[in-house]
Each structure stands twice: as structure tokens, then as C-alpha cells.
């Protein structure tokens, strides 16, 4: 090999080495720079590049409220609020016009919304956009105009059962009714999302440790049945209108489980009534009003008699066929000289007839055989003077005279439903004792699950025989007593009517010609399924005011409709019972 060849290859090898070393050094330098940038950012570069990560809240849905058959009562969807960041908008002067072109409305109004907050970074233009407005903004976005997702609560059935369901406030927190009662269960937890974005702000990927999933609120199944609830509200509204009453209240109870199937409370804005029952919350929204079935006690009048009758019978103070010295005319005089009158005189009525004909005198005669303690104990046993603990917000205990203040007057007034005030919830629960085997179930506003296998402790209030006996007598009220006008063609009802005078607002005495008319009934007779109470507040006495006449037919219609709907076969032994119940 010639010497110049060796020299040439040596040179080539040397250059190659130099080149390789240079490349290696450059690569190492580049690697070092990458490591350096990764470990500590250059502040100039950071400022130039800005943050490449975005944080976003992932909205979760508040739990749903369902009726007992799983129908939707309240649910949440996602809506959009429109706000403007005045610090980012290029031209604030033309923005209102640009926005008005996209979402409609008056540019002046938009300007008025932005102007006072022009020095901030958050000026809300619209709290809730419609779908087409959201699309319009998305199709042609404006710098500084932002769509902010927010939850919107929907009530598909409008104001139906509004006083039971309640509503949520601005921040999606329950304000009243079931929304408030079950707020902890319904409440959702929004998720968090941290993602890398490209230069246009589009999401590239979510950081592995930057995702906190959202948690939806639990759904709550209420005991309310929407079909029965709607029927109850419609029928009660019709009756309130027909008798020009100040208001009306109704409760339907499943006697087996203590579930409240329907509960209606209607107020009729009417001069002379609004002054007695004020409900400012209801003026703002129906869902913000009081639920008077739980909050407002009323004097039950004769509908209270069955409870004292049953207790006195069980204590052996009288037997059904015992003849009592009820007056043939005029008023009965008690042992302490108090005069008690009846709507109609029945001389020598039996204890059974006392309940059927609703004789105040007969009730007073037997009540005087009871000691005050026995009567007070009976009243308490049926749950009066204590909350039902149904959980309904604002529930009251009613008014029962204490042992200390109990007088002879109390002893003869309470048995006929005076000097005592009860809530409709207390009434239906107490009446269910007669409908059941003498036991009293706890009231429920949530549905009993079909697979609920829990034992529940119920209070025994009456013996089974006393409960059955009272039920039989109350069945006769429908044929021989004050319930005749409310008799059902389909179901055998056991019931009691009541017509109590309306107490004066100032608390002393009663109005002369103003009443609270009520009717309470259970059906079917052999295996009672529901108890229904209707209270008509202050009906126009010129049109009608007897409980059996004005509240009775309402209760009958609801019993017919609800039991048919529940698939309970008719038990009324009449050939024409199978007429179509379609009201």
C-alpha cells in the first residue's frame, strides 16, 4: 500500500472521529439543555408560552326525586350561563350589538349588564341560555364571551305536589319540602379535570393525576303516587271552588305501610280568609309555602269522636247497645251544670247510635265516666299532641290541653273534638289504627322498597276487637249517619264527618257562621287499604258547610278512584257497583 494512501485513510479516520465526537458532544449538550428546561423553567420562556394546562369542573347531577312507581318528579340537566370577561374583550363598545345579533335581546340591556362590572372579569349577561342561543355562541365565538355550564332543576309535573317536593335555590341546594329534607342524599359532588391544551385552548389530554371523577347524588323514591296526587289536587280544587272555601287539605294514607300516597293543600285567596291563614312563602312560589297538612292544626270536631268512643268502649265505660240518657229536646246538662247540645235530638240513644248520629250529649255522658287521666291517656295513645315524625319540614304537634290545665270543661269538650287541635297527618295516622288491627304505623314520606325486609315497631293503641268494633260502627255511619251523601257504589267505607266552628283569629271564642268541615274515611271494609281525609277550611255557609255533605263526596270520589287505580276489587254489595269510575 502506498504511503500517501495510509496518510489519507488516517486523515479520514481522524475527521470521522472528530465529527462523531462533535455530534456526541452536541447531542449531550442538547440533552443537558432539555434536562435543564425540564428541571427548572426559564421564566422568559414560561412568560412567552403561558400555562398549557387548564382546570375545569365536571358537573355532576343532583339526585332525582321519584314517585312510588319510579316516575320522575324532579331531575337536573345542564344549562349554560353567559358571561363576559371585559378585560379580554377587544371592543366593549361594539360587544352588546354583536351579542344581540347572536342571542337576541336588546343591546342596551346587554350593555347595562356589562357596564357596571367592566373593571371585573365576570359580568353575567344571561343566567340561562336557550339551546339555540348556546349553538349561536358556539358557532361564532367572540373573544371574552364565555359559556359557563350550570345545573338546572326540572320539575316535569310543574306545580303538582309542589309543597311536598319543594325546590332548590340558586346554588342547587334544597330550600323546602323533600328537596330540603333529603338534601344530603340528593346532593352531588362535582368532579375536577386538569388537562393539557394546545395553542387554541383545545384539550389535548387529561393529566393522569389531574382527574377527580364526579359523584351523582342518590335518587330518592317518595311515597307519593303522581296519579293519586293529581286526582286529589284536581278534586280538592274543584270542591274549594264549588263551596268558595278559604282552602282545603287532603291526605291519602296507605294503612299497611304508613306511606303517604298523596297530600294536597290548597289556599283560595279570599277576603276574610287570608287574614286568618297567611302564607307569604306561597305568594313567592307554591313550593315555598307551608305544607298545612303538617304545620297547621285545626279543630277536628266530630271526626275526633271515634277515638274517644273506641277508648271508652275498650275501658268498659259503655257497651254498644247500652241506652244513654240523651235528651229528647233541649240540651244535655253535665254533672257540673254545663249544657251540651246536639245538632238533632235523639232521646235514649244507644252508645252505638251516639257515634253513628254524632251525638255530643252521649259523648259527654260517657266521657264523664272516664277519669281525666284515662281520657288524656287515650288522646296521647292515638298520637295527638306529638309530632308524627314523618320528616316533613315544619311539622307541628297540634294542641292538646295539658294535665295541669285539664278541667271538667276539657273532659266534656275533647270527646266531641273541641278544645283540641290536630294536624291532618295526625288524623290519618290515628284513623289508620281503626283501619288496621289496632296498631299505629309510623308515617313515611319515602316509599317502602319491595325488598324491604326490615321489622318495624308499631304502637298498639287498641285491642284488635275494639278496633274492629269501632270500624263496624263507622261503616254504619255511611248508611244510618252523616255519611249517607258520601256513600260509594263500589267500596264499603267506614267514615266519620265533622263540622267544627272556626276559632277566632285573636284566640277567644268562635265565629258564628264560619266552619271547618271535614270527613275521614277508610276502605275497603274487610281489608282496608287506604285512609282519606278531607278538610275544607271556612266554606261559604250559604252554599253548604256540613262535613258529610261537602267534604264527604270528595273523599268518596278519591277512594273510588285511588282503589280502582291500585287494583283493589270493589266490595260494595250492589248490582250497579261496576259503573265506570272515570272522573
Amino acid at each position, binding site marked *: 500500500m502506498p504511503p500517501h494512501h495510509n496518510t489519507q485513510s488516517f486523515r479520514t479516520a481522524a475527521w470521522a472521529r472528530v465529527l462523531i465526537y462533535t455530534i456526541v458532544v452536541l447531542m449531550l449538550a442538547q440533552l443537558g439543555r432539555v434536562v435543564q428546561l425540564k428541571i427548572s423553567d426559564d421564566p422568559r420562556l414560561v412568560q412567552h408560552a403561558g400555562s398549557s394546562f387548564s382546570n375545569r369542573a365536571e358537573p355532576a347531577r343532583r339526585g332525582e326525586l321519584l314517585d312510588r312507581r319510579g316516575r*320522575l318528579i324532579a331531575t337536573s340537566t345542564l344549562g349554560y350561563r353567559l358571561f363576559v370577561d371585559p378585560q379580554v374583550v377587544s371592543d366593549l363598545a361594539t360587544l352588546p350589538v354583536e351579542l344581540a345579533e347572536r342571542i337576541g335581546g336588546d343591546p342596551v340591556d346587554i350593555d347595562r349588564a356589562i357596564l357596571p362590572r367592566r373593571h371585573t372579569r365576570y359580568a353575567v349577561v344571561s343566567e340561562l341560555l336557550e339551546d339555540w342561543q348556546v349553538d349561536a355562541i358556539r358557532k361564532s365565538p367572540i373573544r371574552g364571551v364565555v359559556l359557563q355550564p350550570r345545573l338546572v332543576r*326540572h320539575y316535569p*309535573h310543574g306545580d303538582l305536589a309542589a309543597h311536598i317536593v319543594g325546590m332548590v335555590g340558586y346554588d342547587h341546594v334544597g330550600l323546602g319540602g323533600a328537596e330540603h329534607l333529603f338534601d344530603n342524599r340528593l346532593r352531588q359532588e362535582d368532579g375536577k379535570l386538569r*388537562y393539557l391544551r394546545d395553542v387554541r385552548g383545545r384539550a389535548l389530554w387529561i393529566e393522569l393525576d389531574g382527574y377527580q371523577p364526579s359523584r351523582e347524588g342518590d335518587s330518592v323514591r317518595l311515597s307519593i303516587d303522581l296519579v293519586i296526587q293529581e286526582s286529589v289536587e284536581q278534586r280538592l280544587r274543584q270542591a274549594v271552588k264549588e263551596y268558595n272555601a278559604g282552602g282545603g287539605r287532603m291526605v291519602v294514607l296507605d294503612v299497611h305501610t304508613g306511606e303517604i300516597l298523596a297530600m294536597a293543600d290548597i289556599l283560595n285567596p279570599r277576603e276574610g280568609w287570608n287574614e286568618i291563614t297567611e302564607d307569604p312563602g306561597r305568594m313567592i312560589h307554591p313550593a315555598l309555602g307551608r305544607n298545612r297538612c303538617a304545620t297547621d292544626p285545626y279543630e277536628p270536631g266530630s271526626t275526633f269522636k271515634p277515638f274517644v268512643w273506641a277508648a271508652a268502649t275498650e275501658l268498659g265505660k259503655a257497651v254498644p247497645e247500652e241506652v244513654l240518657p240523651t235528651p229528647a229536646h233541649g240540651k244535655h246538662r253535665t254533672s257540673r251544670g254545663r249544657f251540651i247540645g246536639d245538632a238533632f235530638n235523639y232521646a235514649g240513644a244507644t252508645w252505638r247510635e251516639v257515634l253513628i248520629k254524632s251525638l255530643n250529649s252521649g259523648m259527654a255522658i260517657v266521657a264523664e265516666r272516664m277519669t281525666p287521666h284515662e281520657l288524656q291517656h287515650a288522646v296521647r295513645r292515638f298520637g295527638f299532641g306529638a309530632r308524627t315524625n314523618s320528616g316533613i319540614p315544619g311539622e307541628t304537634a297540634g294542641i292538646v290541653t*295539658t294535665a295541669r290545665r285539664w278541667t271538667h270543661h276539657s273532659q266534656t269538650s275533647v270527646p266531641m273534638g273541641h278544645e283540641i287541635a290536630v294536624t291532618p297527618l295526625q288524623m290519618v295516622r290515628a284513623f289508620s289504627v281503626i283501619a288496621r288491627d289496632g296498631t299505629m304505623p309510623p308515617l313515611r314520606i319515602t316509599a317502602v322498597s319491595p325488598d324491604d325486609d326490615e321489622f318495624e315497631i308499631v304502637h298498639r293503641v287498641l285491642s284488635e276487637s275494639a278496633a274492629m268494633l269501632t270500624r263496624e260502627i263507622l261503616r254504619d255511619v255511611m248508611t244510618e249517619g252523616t255519611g249517607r251523601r258520601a256513600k260509594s257504589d263500589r267500596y264499603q267505607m267506614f267514615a266519620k264527618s265533622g263540622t267544627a266552628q272556626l276559632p277566632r283569629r285573636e284566640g277567644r271564642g268562635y265565629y258564628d257562621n264560619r266552619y271547618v268541615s271535614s270527613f275521614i274515611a277508610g276502605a275497603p271494609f274487610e281489608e282496608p287499604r287506604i285512609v282519606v281525609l278531607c278538610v275544607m277550611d271556612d266554606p261559604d255557609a250559604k252554599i253548604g258547610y256540613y262535613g258529610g255533605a261537602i267534604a264527604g263526596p270528595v273523599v268518596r270520589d278519591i277512594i273510588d278512584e285511588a282503589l280502582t287505580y291500585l287494583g283493589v276489587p270493589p266490595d260494595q254489595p250492589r248490582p250497579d257497583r261496576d259503573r265506570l269510575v272515570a272522573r
Partner: protein
Amino acid sequence: MFAKLLLIILTAGAIAAALLVNRQHRIDTAHEITVLHRRLMGHEQTLWRMQAEVAEQIKPNEIRRHIERMGGEWVALPAPPRKRRSADQPDSRLAGQPTIDEDDEFGG
């Protein structure tokens, strides 16, 4: 020597390229997941809205009225009574114990 170095550089380059491709796949996958996640959220929100709309359209009593208008018959779905297993309180006298203060204000 040169050939060896070249081989090392090419191998390193190939490994680097493979790593780069792998990394890009990971980024693409993460991006796809992100896009899918957002699409999923969008669908879920549409579902929420549709659920509310359906509930508004099928109010039970309106369905009943429609059936009646069409001459059909509203047949109840029997809901058998749910009898819960219950136990009486052993001492019935306990059932009536007052739960409110005796000094509370009462009156007729």
C-alpha cells in the same frame, strides 16, 4: 471503528425514533381518551335532558286522558299491599307517653 460507531449511532437513533413513536402513540391515545371522555360527558348531558323531556311528555294523567279520548280502557296495574313485618310494642302503655313538655302552651 467507524463502522462500529456508525452502527451504535444508527441503533441509538433507531431506539430514539421508536421511543418517539411510542411516546406519540401514548399522546394520541391520551388525546383520544380525552376526546372520548368529553363526548361521553356530552352524551350523558343529552341523556339527562332527554330524560326530563320524556318525563314531561308522559304525565300519567295525560296518558289516561289520551286513552279515554281514543276509547280505550284505563286498566290499573294492581299494586298488592306491601305488608311489612311488624312487631307490637310490648307494653301498650308506652305508646301514649307524652313527648312534649307539660308546660307547653295549649288551649282550645
